[in-house]
């Protein structure tokens, strides 16, 4: 770790997950049916996490003004996330492109074969490339971050950073979030390329399709706006993977079992967030562009 700075504002601590727990109401005396109480508990938990997440986002953005303190660690994290995930991302992307080509060719039998090029190119760039890359990183990187930071939380390492006058947001969160955003962009681009290439190979091998037809279909459907959408999703998903992995990790409590739950929660939360973002981004981008 490089040097750190104490937080400027001693307002609500963005990392104060476990020490101070809000008191829950006594279940045995609360009025109303069980489903209402369950809904209430969900609402309270949602509001609590929304508030803490917002505070952590603000602290993360605020910590960006100390680049000397986190740049080295950012590159370390980016290498770990990007280079170490590349093989798996390319493999899954290639397999997805192959499946997409096959299904397009098999389903749309009444249409010309260049539809395969259209389907694979559009599907990979706008959806499968970013989403599958994010899901892979959720399992490989997000879970790892959750476990690492969760372990640090339950073994007092995060508190130790504070007592050493190091800001845990600068030392731990910022490098990981920046690395997540940085590496997602080239990973998504390479995943798109791998899927499109694999779709071509599958098409000319298993379908009655020529390279000319595939290229024609790809060129017909491709528009630069699709690539921009793909990159916007890459940035958004990269942030979600890293931020949620870190956020869930620093909430860990309860020793080894707690860290285990944290790891599971991180993956599930990231995947849900990615899918929600995926639903939201396309119409927003369409409206803006």
């Amino acid at each position, binding site marked *: 770790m490089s*040097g750190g700075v104490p937080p400027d*504002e001693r307002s609500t601590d963005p990392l104060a997950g476990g020490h101070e727990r809000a008191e829950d109401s006594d279940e045995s005396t609360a009025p109303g049916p069980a489903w209402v109480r369950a809904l209430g508990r969900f609402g309270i938990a949602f509001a609590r996490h929304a508030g803490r997440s917002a505070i952590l986002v603000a602290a993360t953005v605020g910590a960006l003004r100390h680049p000397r303190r986190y740049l080295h660690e950012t590159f370390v994290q980016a290498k770990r996330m990007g280079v170490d995930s590349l093989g798996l991302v390319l493999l899954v992307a290639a397999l997805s492109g192959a499946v997409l080509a096959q299904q397009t060719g098999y389903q749309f039998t009444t249409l010309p074969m260049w539809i395969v090029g259209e389907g694979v190119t559009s599907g990979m760039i706008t959806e499968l490339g970013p989403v599958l890359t994010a899901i892979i990183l959720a399992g490989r990187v997000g879970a790892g971050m959750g476990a690492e930071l969760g372990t640090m939380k339950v073994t007092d390492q995060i*508190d130790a950073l504070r*007592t050493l006058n190091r800001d845990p947001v600068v030392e731990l969160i910022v490098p990981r979030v920046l690395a997540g955003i940085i590496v997602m962009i080239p990973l998504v681009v390479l995943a798109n390329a791998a899927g499109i290439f694999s779709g071509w190979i599958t098409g000319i091998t298993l379908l009655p399709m020529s390279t000319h037809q595939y290229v024609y279909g790809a060129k017909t459907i491709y528009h630069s706006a699709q690539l921009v959408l793909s990159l916007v999703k890459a940035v958004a998903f990269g942030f979600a993977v890293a931020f949620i992995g870190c956020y869930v990790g620093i909430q860990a409590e309860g020793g080894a079992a707690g860290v285990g739950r944290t790891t599971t929660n991180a993956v599930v939360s990231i995947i849900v967030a990615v899918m929600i973002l995926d639903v939201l981004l396309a119409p927003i981008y369409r409206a803006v562009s």
Partner: protein
Amino acid sequence: MIEIRGLRKILNGKWVLDGIDLEVHEGETVVIMGPSGTGKSVLIKHIVGLFDPDEGDVLVDGMSVPRASGREIGVIRSKIAYVFQNSALFDSLTVAENIRLGLDPEICDREPEECMRRVRESLTHVNLEPEVLGLLPAELSGGMQKRVALARSIVGRRKYVLYDEPTTGLDPVNAAVINDLIARLQDEIGLTSVVVTHDVESAFFLGDRIALLSRGKIQALGTPEEMKTSDNPAVQRFLSGRTDLTRVA
């Protein structure tokens, strides 16, 4: 000086600390002892701002810790070292890198040689060989990890050191080594220390004054001799390890 005034803290709906008053004067070692789960660690975490009290105040050299701004808490923490119960060494960093965290990063950026000299010096103070500098914490024994944590606490030449159960989990030989180190550091460097422990032997070995924390309050406070001869039932119970005073002969 560290001053704790009327400190009350509620956790999980229970008053863990219920009106603590304590002063720690410069140069002395105050031991806070008591049964497990009585809030000893919670108490000393207030001193370094890891907890905020629900009532009362904690002052370090006249500065209120719970009321301190972000910059002020940095000033307070620059005076205090905290040795955690499980050492809290960073798994991905070597021993040298862990100890270096106890130094001001500006010093290490400006004068890396001076930085390393102080790291080696602190290692000598805790009787560890320079060969361990390149090792990771997982490659060290429990006693060695504790000594690295001690080295990290003294490398920055801070005025106060808080020890949270420094010998817990160690075998008797290593526990005695750690106690000796703490006592020697106190004598050589002249630190002001607060030691939290449930180990009676360590408490009487290290403490200039001993406070017994039980049921959220300090039940007794005095020198080791005063505590040994105290007729306070809580002190007698704790020192004898009995749960029912009526069974004392």
